[in-house]
């Protein structure tokens, strides 16, 4: 994927670009507002990572301009300003996601992947499958192999989200935001407990584990 990174802090930019390369993406870097705006408008990208505080043109203005030019390129906004009002402002300007600094690279990558998947919709099937695990979104049932697995409503939602991003790393923050509609981190590792319970239900008694922990980032569901 081709990604545009608009970030004036050289260290941070280098870091992100390196991470993108290692994930197999192609990255362009712009260090100023005007430069970034130029790239954004004149070239086609699969995604953009835009810092808010830029010299010259503010990041949000760039996003607004891109949107008003009719481009639906997914945008992640980076910012040191993290409160709800600022987040809303960022999303209103046309951003698809909002990350507060400092962030973990894994977080950025996971969200980027999620955005790619959203941007290129495959026909959303009513049944999600990972290995021998099948989740029927309409009937709200889960089966593995021949066995029917009973899940509580939130366990179901959690599994559904993981499976919709099968093969991608899903961070704890992403889960909090999308499965529980939370926009801050509770102190205890709440997510871990929920994942552990879910694991028990779908893995106990079966040969292969499906939910894997990615150290420092989050979880991923997949055959492995």
């Amino acid at each position, binding site marked *: 994927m081709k990604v545009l990174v608009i970030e004036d*802090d050289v*260290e*941070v930019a280098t*870091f992100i670009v*390196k*991470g993108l390369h*290692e994930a197999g993406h192609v990255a362009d870097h712009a260090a100023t507002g005007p430069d970034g705006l130029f790239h954004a408008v004149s070239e086609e990208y699969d995604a953009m990572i835009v810092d808010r*505080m830029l010299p010259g043109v503010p990041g949000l203005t760039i996003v607004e301009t891109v949107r008003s030019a009719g481009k639906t390129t997914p945008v992640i906004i980076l910012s*040191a*300003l*993290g*409160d*709800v*009002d600022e987040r809303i402002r960022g999303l209103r300007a046309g951003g698809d996601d909002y990350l*507060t*600094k*400092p*962030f*973990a*690279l894994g977080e950025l990558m996971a969200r980027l992947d999620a955005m790619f998947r959203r941007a290129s919709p495959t026909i959303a099937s009513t049944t999600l499958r990972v290995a021998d695990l099948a989740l029927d979104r309409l009937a709200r049932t889960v089966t593995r192999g021949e066995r029917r697995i009973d899940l509580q*409503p*939130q366990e179901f939602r959690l599994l559904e989200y993981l499976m919709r991003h099968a093969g991608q790393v899903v961070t704890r923050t992403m889960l909090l935001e999308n499965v*529980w*509609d*939370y*926009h*801050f*981190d*509770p*102190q*205890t590792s*709440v997510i871990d*407990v*929920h994942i*552990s*319970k879910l694991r028990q239900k779908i893995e106990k008694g079966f040969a292969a584990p499906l939910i894997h922990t990615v150290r*420092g980032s989050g979880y991923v569901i997949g055959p492995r």
Partner: protein
Amino acid sequence: MPIPRVLHTSTFRLSILFAAFFCVSAVLLLSVVYWGVGRVLIDQTDEHIDSDVAAFEKAFAVGGRQAVESLIAVKIGNDTSQTATYQLFSSDGSMRTGNLRPVLRLNTFPELGRGEVTSEPLPEAHNREPHTIRTRTVKLSDGGRLLVGRDIYTPLEITERIGQIVGLGLFASIILAGIGGWMISRALLRRVDGMARVSRGIMEGHLDRRLPVGRANDEFDHLTSQLNAMLDRIETLMADVRQVTSGIAHDLRSPLTRLRMRLEKAQLERGENADPVLEEVIVEVDGIRATFDALLRIAQVDARDPRSNFDVVDLEHLVQRMTELYRTVAEDKGLTWRVNIDGDLLIYADEQLLAQGLSNLIDNALKYTPAGGRISLQVSGETDRARLAIEDTGPGIPTAARQEVLKPFFRLEESRSTPGSGLGLALVAAVAKLHGAELLLADAAPGLRVTLILPRGDISPPVPPVRF
């Protein structure tokens, strides 16, 4: 019907006091006049009587009883105003010459000296009331007595009339004082109410409002000018705080970001065999970031415009969300989770902040309640407020520390070693303040019970003060 507020104002009380003082002094003054005038009139009458008596005594000395009788006749003839009374009594008490017509028959001699007699009015008199005659009776050397009198109907009338006027005046001044006091108090009350209303608006977050300053340049205007200056200062301070927190956000987060990124880079470069110290350091950096975030959030909550993110919140729904997230965690720790919901509870609030505050409280409960215990959430409400309570069976917070724990970074001695920044309760306190809610910490015997009493609030503008 409740007593109108005007009657409670200090201005009204003051004007009543003033009116009372005024009335008392007026009464005293007028009483003196009343008495003085009465006295003067009586004294004057007595003088006339005395001069008559002197004339009669001279006549008696010269010509005996006969002279007195002729003088009586002359004087009665000369008395055009018909106010004089002369009466001669012989030594046996019978009435001789004279024009005394007492209402009550005199059985004996009138007493010597000054006195009063009630007499019939003259036939030609306008009113038919009996008149009071002021008299003086002297002894004559032949044994008889002479009574000289003057009709004091008119002086009495005068004094009575003055008395009436005093009474009327008193009554009128009380009424006027009452009305005047009422009107003044009302005007002042209106002014004070105006100030109170603007203050309330300001407290609700409309920091740009100012108190209206009149043109009278009186003490009220001075006061409001000063208050407005104070509000200007507060607005500036709050703007400064916002600027500082944004500045901190940017200036401190940048080095933190770089720090974390370098650590992550080092980790990535070393791959799976990275030094575990790197991991620990990253965890510490994240810890710093969490504390930093929490602190900033508290500052933002304190500084923000209260109503900016308010909307209708269903407390039952909120509690359900919490349950969805935390019940599993609680049960995993061997704690029972209980929820009590009493009624359908909608309030006007900031849902994210409430959720975060509640989350902090639940986090604490999970952290400190030992296995086998219980965490319960309770929601209930009355017409104007709702209660949100969380109770645990942990060690609780000693009464002495209950105020302190709400301060940022405060940690009880016993829990200093457990992870946490000591900001959880500080945020809850900030959120409570933002909502105008009461935050109560109590002993759940055993354990801690934290209650948030939230005003329901509504979407319409603030209720205007009582008017009448």
